[in-house]
């Protein structure tokens, strides 16, 4: 019996669709996205890095005591600090790369780095 490999039109469609999915996956895997945003916390005792996407509470030790940093709903804020004026708490929440909050008395700096500069657009393909 002669071997005949019959390729059907739908096979080609499946190959093309798969190639398309591959391209999308490459962009998703290697391109920058808002999910890359990190919270970088610096104090006397060291440096901490956390993803902005996962909620958590972090106690940052400083000369006056512990500053409480909270990451919730993809934003980060200083929730409490042993400083006299609490201006850092009043500064509110940040979520975009380049923004920062500082508690100067307790020497704690909270910064958002990475991810898309403009959180409104994740990727553009032309």
């Amino acid at each position, binding site marked *: *019996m*002669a071997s005949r*490999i019959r390729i059907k039109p739908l096979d080609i469609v499946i*190959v093309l669709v798969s190639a398309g999915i591959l391209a999308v996956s490459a962009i998703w895997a290697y391109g920058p996205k808002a999910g890359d945003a990190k919270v970088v916390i610096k104090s006397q005792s060291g440096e901490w890095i956390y993803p902005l996407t996962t909620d958590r509470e972090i106690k940052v030790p400083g000369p006056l005591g512990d500053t409480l940093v909270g990451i919730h709903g993809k934003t980060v804020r200083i929730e409490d600090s042993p400083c006299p004026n609490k201006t850092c708490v009043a500064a509110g929440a940040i979520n975009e790369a380049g923004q920062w909050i500082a508690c100067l008395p307790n020497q704690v700096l909270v910064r958002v780095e990475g991810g898309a500069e403009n959180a409104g657009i994740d990727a553009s393909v032309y």
Partner: protein
Amino acid sequence: MPESTLPSTKDFPSAARYPMKKSSAADVTALLGAFCFFLSALEYMVPKPLPFMRLGIANLPILLATDLLPLPWFLALALVKVVGMSVISGSLFSYIAVFSLAGTLTAALTMRGGRKLFGRHVSAVGISILGAMVSNAVQIAIASVLVFGEAARLIAPPFLIMGLVTGTLLGLFAEAFAGKSRWYERAKALLGGTEEGRA
């Protein structure tokens, strides 16, 4: 045959104790299952950067069975492959078995579903690619939860490319084999094939 490096069932004394009932579907399933083991052993010898994520060569008998075996036996074949290999390699309680089960079952169900959906408008190539892509995507998802965390997305593109390539190659081989093989012809005559395969 590279027999010295492959495990032998002389190590499995219980294997020879079972009578072979002449039930056609069971015989075909058992024979194809044996080839799954053989191809798995061959695949094991190919060095891979991620040793627990399968190439998918061992799914070739399952691809051939898509048009051959009734659904219950088809699913039994997939399970025979997973459980049999897990016992041979002693990996039954490890994450390797989890990847094997997820990868094999999704590939099998996708291939069967693809055949049911597209009937004769698609060849073994398309079915095989569908099975490989879905199976690899599922394995990446499991890897991200169990092993690699978010970094799993970095291996997604090369793994999917591999799925597309091996899926295409396996599909081409399966098409050629099904067209040429006398064994396949006899098995199909014996079993009557599947509804979709007959169309």
